[in-house]
């Protein structure tokens, strides 16, 4: 790290000097360049395949499978036809609607159960509270592949196969443990004096939760709903087993079937994949500033 005496006023002139000032006093320019260079290496690994996929969606059929490298299509080969084809396909539309219904219902149910449960675990002391917390989290350890078999049998005997409810229930329990822990972490940060004051003012537990805790824990609720939404939106296993007839298929499973049945039409495959990824990424963009906070203060704290 640069020592401060190097940063005298006269060094801050010229291009190097100005860059140095931009980088800030804590770092030498050489060090900053090194950090950016190392980050660039990481970002190449992650961004290049993503960009390659996204750029492929606007390439016409003539060049999408070209035998030489075409990174950006020329005006002649540029097309929005792939998007038009995917977005107007009734089958894709029904997959999209199913995904929306299932992901939003899952998020709503998980939030209600999660907020009530987290409030209880954060504000009350009773025998078995700690055990309950550990038990919730340890269900994350159970192999989904093991649970899916009896879960399918159970849904089958309740005639919940090929219904939204069966899938929504499965997604709720997949997301609930972490949502509970995240919310509890955020609730713990809110001083208990605030809800005690509300209780003295005559609030019941539920109104105190509604008027005091929930408004203050909104960032945590945003992170928990994001996590739940993504769990549901991205799930493949439960949908693939519980959608036997096809009426309740969601995007990931539909995409998988499309890709394995139709390896010729790569234009449609890459475009459908891009559209499938967008809602999770948009939701992430909305709450990303809270996620670091969530990872730091919420579910990651041990008991």
């Amino acid at each position, binding site marked *: 790290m640069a020592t401060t005496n190097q940063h005298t006023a006269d060094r801050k002139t010229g291009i190097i000097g100005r860059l140095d000032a931009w980088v800030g006093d804590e770092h030498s320019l050489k060090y*900053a360049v090194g950090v950016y260079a190392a980050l660039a290496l990481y970002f190449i690994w992650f961004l290049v395949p993503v960009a390659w996929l996204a750029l492929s969606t606007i390439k016409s059929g003539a060049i999408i499978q070209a035998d030489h490298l075409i990174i950006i299509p020329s005006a002649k080969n540029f097309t929005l036809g792939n998007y038009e084809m995917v977005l107007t396909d009734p089958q894709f539309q029904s997959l999209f609607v199913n995904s929306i219904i299932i992901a939003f219902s899952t998020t709503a149910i998980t939030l209600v159960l999660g907020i009530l*449960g987290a409030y209880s675990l954060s504000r009350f002391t*009773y025998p078995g509270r700690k055990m309950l917390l550990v038990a919730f989290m340890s*269900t994350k350890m159970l*192999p989904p*592949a093991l649970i899916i078999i009896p879960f399918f049998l159970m849904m089958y005997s309740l005639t919940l196969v090929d219904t939204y409810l069966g899938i929504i229930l499965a997604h709720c329990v997949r997301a609930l443990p972490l949502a509970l822990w995240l919310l509890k972490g955020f609730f713990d940060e809110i001083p208990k004096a605030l809800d005690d004051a509300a209780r003295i003012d005559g609030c019941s537990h539920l109104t105190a939760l509604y008027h005091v805790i929930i408004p203050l824990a909104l960032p945590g609720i945003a992170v928990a709903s994001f996590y739940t939404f993504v769990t549901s939106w*991205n799930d493949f*296993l439960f949908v693939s087993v519980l959608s036997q007839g096809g009426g309740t298929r969601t995007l*990931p499973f539909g995409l998988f079937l499309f890709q394995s049945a139709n390896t010729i039409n790569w234009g449609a495959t890459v475009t459908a*994949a891009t559209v499938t990824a967008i809602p999770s990424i948009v939701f992430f963009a909305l709450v990303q500033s809270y996620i670091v906070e969530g990872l730091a203060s919420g579910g990651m704290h041990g008991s």
Partner: protein
Amino acid sequence: MSTPTGEEYRFHRVRRFFGEAEWFTRETWVGYGLVLPATVMMLVIIVYPTVQALWISFHSRSFLNPNDVEWIGLVNYHELFADPVFTLALKHTILLTVGAVVSMYLLGLGLALLLKENLPGIGKLRSLSMVPWVIPPVVIVIIWTWTFQVDYGLANLVMKMFGGPNKSWFGDKSLALPLVTMLRVWKDTPFVAIALMASMQSIPGEYYEAAEIDGAGRLQKFRYITLPNISYISMIMIVIETIAAFNSFQMIYIATGGGPVNATEVLGTYVYQQAFREYALGYASAVGAVMLTLLAIFTVVYIVLEDTE
């Protein structure tokens, strides 16, 4: 020596005790009541199926006739350990788990060290780096199969420019397992990195200042301040990622379906294969039970290790 005031005092104490007990039980029941819906849901949808799965593993049961159940004791387990595909799947699962967790941790640690630096634009890069973590697994698989597509995938086009081979990477028996391991690493490294970074940022700056006064270099500060202070979160991340990698199913099933020729068969895909392709519910449950046992052993060892530290 008892006086009327003493009697009164005792009575008062008893009344207060009951009052407190009543308050305590009322509060307790509200607490239980609020956590009850979540608990019931977990019990019905997770705990009961788990127990049932273990029970099924001692039976011969097929999806074709789900009501035709026969108790066969340990026969499924006997067959399991004589099954070469199971042994192979177990080996692949361990290779994948160790490979993925080690690479993920080291890469995540490196990325965390870079992202924690307070440089212009780094906040944006922090957010951007998280994107692979939120992309649906099926899309991740399509991104990479598209990149590695034979003839016109980016990897082959670039290789061609340098005179390299043109091949179907996921179809190569020796490359398929490393590739699906890479997919896991690609997806979860940012998650590990951000958690480690958050933990690094909570280390008080005075620690580093004091070390600097003592003449510590960058490497020494990392070794003696950063590492010990992120050890707790590191352990948690390693446990979470070990469990996730051990349970790997989605991306492998979508990318290779366990192939080519079982080269990427792991326990997760083998359970699915046995249950939903061969309809052998009892046998599939036995594989799942072995997974659960190994994870339980891992968790117990981890808890014991953490306790002794």
